[in-house]
């Protein structure tokens, strides 16, 4: 399974959207589910790209190209996946990276898992200041708000974000994710209602326990 990630990473670094899509499509058609595509193939590829930077084989500019190619890949994958599928959209979830945080691929994959599970989703992407989140959430009233961060220094934003959002009138559930959540304990930034998720597998398991059709099943 690492081979898929490595193979994809080379295509991402070349910015070859078409070849990258053919590979992902082929893996998908061989019977692999979205969790596998996101976690093993795409995250695997991006991890390998991180390794290549660390071993001085590529530059940050190459990483940027790979990121935007992955972004396209994810959008196309979801589009194909949802074609003809009617959304239940009884429950709503919004997705954003805390202020200054630019790494949004993991968040995007999370939002796509929600969307595939029938949730009504809004993806706000990287670097969303708290005031903008609050405004958007007050208007749209999501049941769940997913926050992501990848740089340790951005963890300082978690406290104010979680505090501000959990107190909104419709009392949304705040879920926190990001590559560091698996490695370190950030629970001191949250409350007893905040959910921390280590990886996409956690997201998938949570979604299976919280189908979007049943309004009362969100764990407050």
């Amino acid at each position, binding site marked *: 399974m690492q081979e898929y990630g490595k193979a994809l990473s080379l295509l991402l670094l070349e910015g070859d959207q078409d070849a990258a899509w053919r590979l992902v499509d082929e893996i998908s058609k061989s019977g692999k589910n979205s969790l596998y595509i996101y976690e093993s193939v795409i995250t695997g590829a991006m991890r390998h790209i991180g390794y290549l*930077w*660390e*071993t*001085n084989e590529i*530059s*940050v*500019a190459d990483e*940027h190209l790979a990121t*935007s190619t992955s*972004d396209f890949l994810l959008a196309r994958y979801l589009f194909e996946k949802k074609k003809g599928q009617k959304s239940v959209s009884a429950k709503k979830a919004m997705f954003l990276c805390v202020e200054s945080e*630019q790494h949004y691929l993991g968040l995007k994959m999370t939002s796509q898992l929600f969307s595939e599970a029938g949730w009504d989703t*809004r*993806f706000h*992407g*990287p*670097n969303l200041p708290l005031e903008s989140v609050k405004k958007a959430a007050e208007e749209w009233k999501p049941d769940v708000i997913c926050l992501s961060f990848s*740089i*340790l*220094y951005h963890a300082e934003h978690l406290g104010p974000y979680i505090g501000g959002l959990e107190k909104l009138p419709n009392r949304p559930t705040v879920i926190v994710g990001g590559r560091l959540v698996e490695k370190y304990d950030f629970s001191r930034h949250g409350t007893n209602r905040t959910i921390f998720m280590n990886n996409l597998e956690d997201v998938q398991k949570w979604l299976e326990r919280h189908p979007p059709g049943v309004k009362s099943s969100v764990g407050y």
Partner: protein
Amino acid sequence: MSDIKFLPQPYFMLNRNFEILAASDKSYEVFETAPNFLDLVDWESRRKAAHFLALKEGTKESELIMKTKESPYALFDVSINWNSGDGHILCIEKDHRLAELENIVEKHRLRLAETNLELLEKKEQVEQNLYEIKSLSCPFIKLTKTTALVPLFGDLDDGMIRQNEERILNKTQDGHYDYLLFDFNGVRNLTEAGVAAFVSIINELQLMGISPSIIGIKPNHAFYLNGHPSKLNVPFLSSLSTALKKTI
């Protein structure tokens, strides 16, 4: 040696343990004072930096994330040259213009995402409008105590019938009508599924003891209605006035 002071970029001279022996003035404008070069490197770049510095031969270049006075993580191009045990290292911050460009690209990306959301909202709105149009394209008009008129407008397809079927059946029953006139004058195209659904609604009405009639069939309608396997056992009339003369 003291000329090092005046180099226009951050420069450090290191010993084998990467301890800083000398630096340019610019270094301390950009970085905090630290005994060891690795102290200036972001924790997640430290492994890369240690590996890169440990090569200790000739000239090498790398990208490192470093801690500056302005930011806890700033991207630098770092080059080092080792000469008789001393490391000479130059740190040049990645051009700000690159960051500006990244911001612009990011704005474009957001704009695209927003446009996408707007398009999605419009699509939902259009679907809702279409639903309403379909409901309106099948009004139920009371003519007399016993007769009602249902003029059909637009394309007669499966969706149009399915969406209005229940309303027509309920209104017919609630109003105790005996005759129901379907007016095809406003119908443009028919689909096979639409005809099948229409035939089934006629059969249901007949089972309820109501006499449906069809008015204003045009040649293209006749082709479709005739092509359907189960023939309709209802009067076909040319105009509303003929129908009214018959029912009143």
